[in-house]
């Protein structure tokens, strides 16, 4: 029996959700339009491309936009005793971009964020945020970004406004600014009515929204979001996504490590695939998916489900016609791209 599970409308939804703005940094065509050959569509075992060959080159060479790069990383490495967590990663994120950083557990995503935000020291390499070196000008760098960590790091025994107030004071904000920005941001994340509530009385979604508001209160140019929707139900998750988009529309550069891969697909302007401490590829979600194929058939092979990718629907139909086993036909998603580039599943 052939089972067709067609996820129609996925791309339409994505197109509706994705705002369209003139972004000079949107990748032109990173690796040319070669589709990596039909054999490569077989997903598992596909040869990874080098980061250098896939970083969209146009904006990187363009001096006009050089000043606008908000994150710049050059050969960043981090080792913990016998573990080589980051193996010389390099990339740049221009102003206003939502950059998603994707990889399996232990790939080095959180390590990268921790180094960029001053929580962990690098072993070698360099990084700049908003033009300031992360270690040599660390205090200036820290004014440039807001950070939402994976774990809830709020003071549970304090109220929402007390949490905000302490954060504002850390950023040397005047009393007037503290009040004004706190009210503005709490209204922005729909928590203004709860500002006298203790944090421990809030739901998980409210705590996440508060963490985002707190990270934004000093008007940072860059916002680091480390799995901001972990542990939240689908409805709240989408609310957080809308909030993230709203923040990006204010001109904030966002560096996101998503917990759910569709987060990157829906939200990101560009995505980096990170695997075993190395950048495998960087491109727009659309380009990455196109490089993998358009249609995917999940074929059960023993204990494994092996996806096979096709450029066109007729190619997929031809393949299906020859099969006798059970199949699922669907559109290619970002997880397929990750699988095809690294040969690994993303288990965030």
């Amino acid at each position, binding site marked *: 029996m052939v089972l067709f599970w067609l996820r129609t409308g996925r791309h339409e939804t994505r197109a509706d959700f994705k705002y369209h703005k003139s972004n000079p940094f949107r990748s032109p065509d990173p690796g040319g339009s070669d589709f990596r050959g039909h054999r490569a569509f077989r997903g598992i075992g596909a040869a990874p491309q080098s980061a250098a060959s896939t970083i969209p080159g146009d904006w990187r060479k363009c001096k006009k936009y050089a000043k606008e790069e908000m994150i710049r990383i050059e050969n960043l490495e981090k080792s913990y005793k016998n573990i080589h967590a980051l193996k010389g990663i390099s990339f740049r994120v221009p102003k206003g971009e939502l950059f998603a950083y994707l990889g399996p557990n232990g790939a080095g995503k959180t390590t990268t964020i921790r180094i960029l*935000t*001053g*929580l*962990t*020291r690098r072993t070698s390499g360099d990084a700049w945020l908003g033009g300031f070196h992360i270690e040599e000008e660390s*205090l*200036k760098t*820290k*004014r440039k*970004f807001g*950070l939402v*960590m994976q*774990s*809830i*790091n*709020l*003071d*549970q*025994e*304090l109220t929402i406004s*007390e949490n905000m*107030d*302490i*954060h504002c*004071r*850390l*950023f*040397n904000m005047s009393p007037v600014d503290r009040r004004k920005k706190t009210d503005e941001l709490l209204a922005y994340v729909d928590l203004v009515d709860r500002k006298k509530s203790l944090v421990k009385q809030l739901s998980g979604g409210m705590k996440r929204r508060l963490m985002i508001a707190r990270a934004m209160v000093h008007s940072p140019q860059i916002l680091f979001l480390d799995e901001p929707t972990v542990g939240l139900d689908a409805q709240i998750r989408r609310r957080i996504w809308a909030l993230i988009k709203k923040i990006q529309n204010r001109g904030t550069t966002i560096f996101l490590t998503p917990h759910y891969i569709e987060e990157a697909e829906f939200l990101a302007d560009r995505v980096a695939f990170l695997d075993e401490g190395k950048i495998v590829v960087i491109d727009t979600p659309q380009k990455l998916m196109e490089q993998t194929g358009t249609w995917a058939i999940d074929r059960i092979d023993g204990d494994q489900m092996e996806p096979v990718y096709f450029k066109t629907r007729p190619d997929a139909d031809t393949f299906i016609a020859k099969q006798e086993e059970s199949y699922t036909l669907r559109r290619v998603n970002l997880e397929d791209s990750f699988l095809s580039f690294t040969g690994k599943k993303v288990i965030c």
Partner: protein
Amino acid sequence: MLNGFIAVYLREVLILKRRIKRQLLTMSVSPLLYLIAFGYAMGDTVRFDGHTYMEFLIPGLIAMSSMTQAFAISTDINVARFYWHIFEEFQAAPISDAAYVAGEVMAGMTRAFISVGVILIIGLFFNVSLAYGNPLFWLAIGLNSFVFASLAVGLAMLVKSHADQSMLTSFIITPMAFLGGTFFPVDRLPVWAQDIIYLLPLTHASKVIRQTAFGILPDSSHYLLLAIIGVLFFLLALKCVSQARD
């Protein structure tokens, strides 16, 4: 630096305010038990330099309590670091390590002074009132709490878990509390034992707190020593906070 210090200190004060009833109760229990068990039990039969044992004990308890309460900030830092991950919020903020350490040390000292206030009030119920108006008495308490709050911040950065934290209390604070001249006059011990006990900062603090409470002019070398140890522990705390980035 000042804003960072105020933010760190304010956070601790707000938390302390939320827990104040529990804290006051905790701060009262041990001194009360010591005063009942040792102070009443000894009665007037034991006298040191013309003072009753109750009068001798209260300055010792003040030294001990200011030490334990100042050091207790390490548990709060430990919980904030490993359980609530609040420490990351400070690490990612544009504040210096010195501002963070100073804020936490000041919070530890605040707790120490509150605990001293509790003991003074309890002492009044036992009809003990000493020369508490002497500024040198308060200076000694300040230095003692500065020493142990600084040590607490440094050690809180070195420990790797909650379990390590309780080990610190068992191996550092508890022996010091009993041996640091709190319950008995160190001068009556054999010289070799005195040499060892005078290595403990609490011994110097107990001595000057007791002397000033009795209206005796203390030896300034004890203050100097406490100040030097305090500064060294503060520098150690700075180094440990900086190294906590790995």
